């Protein structure tokens, strides 16, 4: 992001959300919106994270629980289909994994340095319920 000089910033530290609003913003998908350069959507907060969630498409049932519960809209879902994690905004809180109802879990926390493909290959087995 280009930094603006003092004479270019909006007076009163007002941050416009969007550069230009075309029609009803609520009807535009998150990824298709024209964000203003000062909008927090364009700033990364990825360096807060220690552990990251990894998403496994093969196990997901598109229940949207993670999308609903994510405190920072870091779950990318398009037309009620899970697509993955927005790693620019995910802070690694693990709430999505907690609320994921499938067995095996379709979202799991891995070390931030773990490679995603390797994580998917080493996905843990289904947990056997104790009787």
């Amino acid at each position, binding site marked *: 992001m280009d*930094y*603006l*000089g*003092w*004479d270019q*910033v*909006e*007076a*009163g*530290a*007002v*941050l*416009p*959300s*969007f550069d230009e*609003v075309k029609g009803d*913003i609520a009807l535009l998908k998150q990824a298709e919106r024209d964000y203003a350069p*000062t*909008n*927090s959507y364009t700033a990364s907060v990825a360096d807060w994270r220690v552990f990251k969630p990894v998403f496994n498409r093969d196990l997901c049932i598109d229940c949207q629980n993670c999308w609903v519960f994510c405190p920072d809209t870091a779950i990318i879902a398009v037309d009620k289909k899970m697509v993955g994690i927005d790693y620019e905004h995910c802070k690694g809180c693990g709430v999505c994994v907690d609320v994921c109802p499938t067995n095996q879990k379709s979202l799991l926390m891995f070390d931030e340095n773990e490679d995603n493909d390797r994580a998917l290959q080493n996905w843990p087995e289904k947990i056997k319920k104790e009787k």
Partner: protein
Amino acid sequence: MAEKLKLQEVEVWDGNMAFAQAMRQAQIDVVAAYPITPSTPTVHGYAKFLSDGYIDGEFVLVESEHAAMSGCVGAAAAGGRVATATSSQGFALMVEVLYQAAGMRLPIVLALVNRALASPLNVNGDHSDMYLGRDAGWIMIDAFNAQEAYDLMLMGFKIAEDLSVRLPVMINQDGFITSHTAQNVRPLQDEEAYEFIGEYQSVNPMLDFSHPVTYGAQTEEDWHFEFKARQHKALMDSKACIQEVFESFKTVTAREYNIVESYEMDDAQIAIVALGSTVESAVFAARKLREEGIKAGVVAPRLLRPFPYEAIKDALKDVKAIATLDRSSPGGALGMLYNEISAALYQGDNRPIINNYIYGLGGRDMTQENIMEIFRDIKKNADAGKLVTPLQQFSGLRGPKLSFF
């Protein structure tokens, strides 16, 4: 539209009524206020006008002054004309939010009736609260009597809301001395007053849903400095707008205001710089001394923030000695007026001897006799051409003489 109130050509109002009437005529959208002595009658009067049908706006009852200013910030960000009134401890409680209002460039107008800060508890007038607000980024204007409180309150809205300024404005008047003593005040009629202030123009209102904006976001080192620089520049440049508003007010009322007021200064050799109701006492004292052949004058900054350095330098360009009178507990330093006046003159050709007097704390009377004593004191410095009296003295204090440096 609210009902109009027919005013006499000359009304007998105290300073609080002057504030309340000006607020009524401004047709404010939202007033969020919490009562505190000695500014209670301002909001009391305003609430009475509202209940009697003379005001259309909202009056928000809140649980503290912190909430009052917070409500004002919210309402101003939403896009309305907003004002409140307070004093002393209430003002101190507002301080956190004062910075928010200035940083968000919201044109809120605050009627501040000056009073001492505890402890010890004291409801009487001094300038401690005024001084507490001086770095908050607000435009600060001082009224010396009830007429000026009314006039400056009207002008306060026009200044704050000017699109080149867009900063909050506080209008100060002395607690009790000005706020509770009735005087003749010449008001404008309602329509004339409203026409002078003009319709409110909102900028980036939060209630404009087609242009969503964020107010008061976290900026850290990435942006904070730039926003603050922009705010400071707007405050420094606001002097031009303030001067313009003073001039347009003069064309309407023939009453003249300047960012620095000078009295008896044409040939003055010694001068007092003071604020508030003390200015008028000092003018009387100066005139009495002139009968004895002492060329005394008075300079009073009408504008405290942004501080009018150039105009101060100009007003004091010929004097030999100056007494700066601070009505606030100095808190381990020379008084604010001493520091600012020194700064204004240090770069100039005239470098007079400057003294600092602390006086009138907690409502202690400042008599003409006290002021004449100060004038006679600094005349010794002017005659000697050097500092022969202590740099900082307490005037009107019981007990042994107290001075520093």
